[in-house]
């Protein structure tokens, strides 16, 4: 994938022309943009980089599957948040929202730095592999006079097992499978999330949705908490305020100051609710085009 450069002929030349490199995911892209601007990660000029990041996603979007796109969008959303925050007047009170933004920024940069570290050692690996390819180990059959002395071979399996080993070898390796083993369902109960919201809203009376989900562990929890807000609305204990479509959503408490509020459990009864991290959702696993074993086999033909 890496290093492939292509031009998008469809774009009108006078409006927008980018040479699109293919990046290994959002972190790779972000690092690429930051280094292109010769910026330090810790002092990234967000407005420049964010726009380019969004432009890149827009230009490539249709080519991606959901899994890949969602990871880029997650980073893009964080960047936009940060960019938006910088447009606001400074020196104001540090409310929950500001703190959440600061945390989001730190987390994003920290993960970016971590990714960069692995990218750096990957370069070291590449150099070592190249140097090592110049040295050939001695791999020759044992001299006849010693070969006979080798201990008796232990196959360790019977004919049946042996046939299974063969069958495994004959089964094409890079078969596209829907990988599900990594979906471990970090369940977030809508009912539990509603209970958290009730406690919090009774205390602060009103808060933006953004602030309400700032402590969420992952996307699945944000989704569950959002569903909980809707359920609370249905119960008639909260009110919404939103200045414009897609604008900031403010949630206010309108219910009683005490007593139990229990929301319906439409979601939680489902044994496998659709409240999983979309970034981990199953999609057809992709094989890296440069690394399919089938490609390599031609390299050692006799």
């Amino acid at each position, binding site marked *: *994938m*890496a*290093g492939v450069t292509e031009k998008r002929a469809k774009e009108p030349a006078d409006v927008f022309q980018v040479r699109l490199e293919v990046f290994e*995911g959002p*972190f*790779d892209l972000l690092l690429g943009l930051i280094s292109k601007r010769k910026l330090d990660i810790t002092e990234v000029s967000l407005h420049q980089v964010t726009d380019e990041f969004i432009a890149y996603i827009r230009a490539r979007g249709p080519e991606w599957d959901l*899994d*890949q796109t969602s*990871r880029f969008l997650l980073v893009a959303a964080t960047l936009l948040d940060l960019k938006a925050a910088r447009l606001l007047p400074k020196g104001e009170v540090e409310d929950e929202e500001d703190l959440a933004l600061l945390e989001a920024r730190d*987390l994003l940069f*920290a*993960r970016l*730095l*971590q*990714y*960069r*570290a*692995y*990218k*750096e*050692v*990957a*370069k*070291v*690996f590449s150099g*070592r*592999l190249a*140097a*090592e*390819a*110049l*040295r*050939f*180990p*001695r*791999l020759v059959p*044992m001299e006849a006079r010693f070969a006979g002395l080798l201990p008796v071979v232990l196959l360790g399996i019977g004919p049946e097992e042996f046939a299974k080993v063969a069958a495994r070898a004959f089964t094409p*390796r*890079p078969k596209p499978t829907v*990988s599900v*083993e*990594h979906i*471990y369902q970090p369940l977030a109960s809508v009912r539990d999330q509603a209970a958290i919201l009730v406690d919090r809203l009774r205390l602060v009376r009103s808060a933006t949705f953004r602030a309400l989900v700032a402590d969420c*562990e*992952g996307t699945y929890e944000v989704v569950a908490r959002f569903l909980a807000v809707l359920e609370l609305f249905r119960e008639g204990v909260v009110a919404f305020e939103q200045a414009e479509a897609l604008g900031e959503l403010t949630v206010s408490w309108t219910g009683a100051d005490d007593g139990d509020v229990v929301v319906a459990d439409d979601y939680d009864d489902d044994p496998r609710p659709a409240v999983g*991290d979309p970034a*981990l959702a199953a*999609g057809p*696993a*992709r*094989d*890296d085009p*440069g*690394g*399919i*074993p089938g*490609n390599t086999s031609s*390299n*050692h033909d*006799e």
Partner: protein
Amino acid sequence: MLQEDEQTRHDEPPGPGLRTALEAILMVVDEPVAAITLAQVLERPRDQVITALRELSAEYTVTGRGFDLREVAGGWRFYTRDTCAPLVERFVRDGQQARLTQAALETLAVVAYRQPVSRARVAAIRGVNSDGVMRTLAARGLVEEAGSDPDSQAVLYRTTSYFLERLGLRDLDELPELAPFLPDDVEGLEDQR
């Protein structure tokens, strides 16, 4: 060489000297042999064997031999000298090894430093799905399965000794430090998602 044989001849049974014996044995192996294994067969202290191996290796280099004795993947083995690569390649059919892609190198790096590690964890660090790349690395023998995570049941992966061979490393401790590339407090960040 001869000198060493002369010196040791006084207090040991007649037979080839240590260095000669090491050269002979390493001539018939097709995988790295640990110094301790050689020490057991030759009935010599391990330290003495290691010293002799290092001296042989240094001698080959100084005198410009076409072969080299190196410690890789926990064992010693004869290799050709890198300067001879263009000539040797014409004789070694399987010399050409397909280059790894950037995706494969990054994934390999994460597995090397985080092993045993799940595919989901690797994906979280790289920011992209790494399942296909992981399968490729496994098919190439560079990584292998290493049980499953007790909590999530996810399959865990680790690097193989073939990985060490391909990188020319004695063991995993020889991997370059990751810390200089990392700021503080980044460890474990991917858990916070």
